């Protein structure tokens, strides 16, 4: 009986300590940290990395909240311009009409897409227009581009895929891409293209390997450096926008995003880092 009482007291003590420990702002290292509160609104493509970034940010600064909402790039620009959100997200460059309103652009990552074919394909380079024609079914035989006399087999991704959304957006091919073969992952696209000499597909540039051949587009090779600098055209910047210089909350978040930790998260999600 006595043992039970002792146990009960110990349990109660542990619970109390846990309760108090929970109240303290503690990031695990014992030192107290600041808390931040901010809202981030805009492009659903950027949202895909802003979500994980916000989670990691909240873990690093317990008690902070970074609320991420979608809506699209245009919504992101508007909300940032009106000051309704601390940070606006856009997955494209600002239009002329959106410039000169005091928005400061922070390029947090670049989304690059490699156009891939079978390694035996004799072609090595394409123009943007040729890519558009290939994927929309205007060009149906590789011989039309000086290649072998073989039909073109377009490998696409499933509806809702972020890579497909980006690919169509960058090349202006919304709802026009042929879906001769639909693969449900980057790996499946690679496997399909690597297994069919007639195939052409697109994958996130971060997942390139030697099983497939990346096309040179408009004379620019698909390399990390070219994507980062923006000369490789089948890519788009991921922007975070603030009205004027970022406020204290937004600055803390952006600092985190540009830190090695933040950029590692971006790379893990399959995008090109900017640091």
């Amino acid at each position: 009986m006595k043992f039970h009482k002792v146990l009960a007291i110990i349990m109660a003590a542990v619970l109390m300590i846990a309760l108090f420990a929970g109240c303290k702002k503690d990031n695990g290292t014992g030192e107290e940290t600041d808390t931040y509160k901010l809202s981030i609104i805009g492009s659903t493509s950027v949202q895909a990395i802003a979500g994980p970034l916000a989670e990691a940010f909240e873990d690093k600064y317990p008690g902070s909240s970074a609320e991420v909402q979608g809506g699209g790039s245009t919504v992101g620009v508007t909300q940032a311009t009106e000051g309704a959100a601390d940070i606006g997200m856009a997955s494209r460059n600002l239009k002329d009409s959106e410039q000169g309103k005091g928005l400061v652009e922070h390029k947090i990552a670049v989304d690059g897409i490699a156009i891939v074919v079978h390694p035996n394909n004799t072609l090595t380079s394409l123009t943007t227009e040729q890519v558009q024609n290939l994927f929309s079914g205007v060009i149906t035989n590789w011989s039309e581009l000086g290649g072998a006399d073989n039909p073109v087999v377009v490998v696409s991704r499933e509806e809702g895929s972020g890579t497909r959304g980006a690919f169509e957006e960058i090349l202006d091919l919304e709802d026009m891409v042929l879906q001769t073969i639909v693969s449900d992952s980057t790996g499946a696209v690679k496997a399909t293209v690597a297994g069919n000499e007639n195939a052409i597909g697109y994958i996130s540039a971060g997942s390139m390997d030697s099983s497939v051949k990346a096309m040179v587009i408009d004379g620019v090779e698909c390399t990390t450096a070219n994507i980062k600098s923006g000369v490789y055209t089948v890519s788009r910047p991921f922007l975070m926008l603030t009205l004027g210089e970022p406020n204290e909350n937004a600055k803390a978040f952006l600092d985190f995003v540009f830190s090695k930790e933040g950029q590692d998260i971006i790379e893990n999600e399959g995008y090109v880092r900017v640091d």
Partner: protein
Amino acid sequence: MSNASELKKFNKKTRIMTFLVENLFMVCAFVSVLAVAIITFFIFYSGLPGMIEIGIFDFIFGTDWSPVYADGGFGILPMILGSIYATAGAIIIGVPVGLFTAVMLSRIAPKWLSRIMRPAIELLAGIPSVVYGFFGLMVIVPFVQKFFSLPMGQSLFSAILILSLMILPTVITISITSINSVPREYTEASLALGATKIETIFKVEIPAAKSGILSGVILGIGRAIGETMAVIMVAGNSPYMPTGLFSSFRTLTGNIAIEMGYASGLHRSALFATGVILFVFIMILNLVLMAITRKGGAVRE
């Protein structure tokens, strides 16, 4: 005196045990019934609102599937036909092969041969479908592409080949069982009347085993229509109307599995609605199966 009280005690103990065990079995029985009820409710609850929003007619008979675009279509007729074509093809190839195999193993083959072949066929049933799919992708797809010199091997035909292979064990084992359960007298009477062995098999034994064989076929259809992974890997999955034996196509199950990952809003409920259609297909199959087995039972009596 002490004997009587011991007996009473024993009786009481048995009664309690019986009570407990019966209730345990009752709970177990309810688990599966409850699971079916919950799944049914969940599919219809998540799928019906979307289906009604899209319009049931537009959903079932629409031919344009492009759910993420502004003026996108939500028609799954290509997938419904895809599932039906693939299953029909698998039945056309798989059932004769399966039935003849069953006849061979139960009536013609020497004992030692069927002792080797039966475990091999049962092993076929145990292979995971992703392995079938991988085999299809690495062997059947390139073979079909080369053999018919096509732009690509991902096609209805490749899926039919894989599915035929996958329904074989079901068709074979159930057919063997039902052929073996044909009463000996039928066979002996037929042979006594001067019929040959083959005549006896095809004119007496198979007709007598008809309902069992049909059950095997229906179960095979169920397997083929529900198969997902293996088909995704060889079908090409294009959401367009299948135009021929060698065109890329998508099945109902494939549609759900491929797009579930990123779907949201109406797109997501449209995928659940695809599940509703699939559910209805399976229900119809089960009803047919029940009708066949009931009729078969009546005949045998």
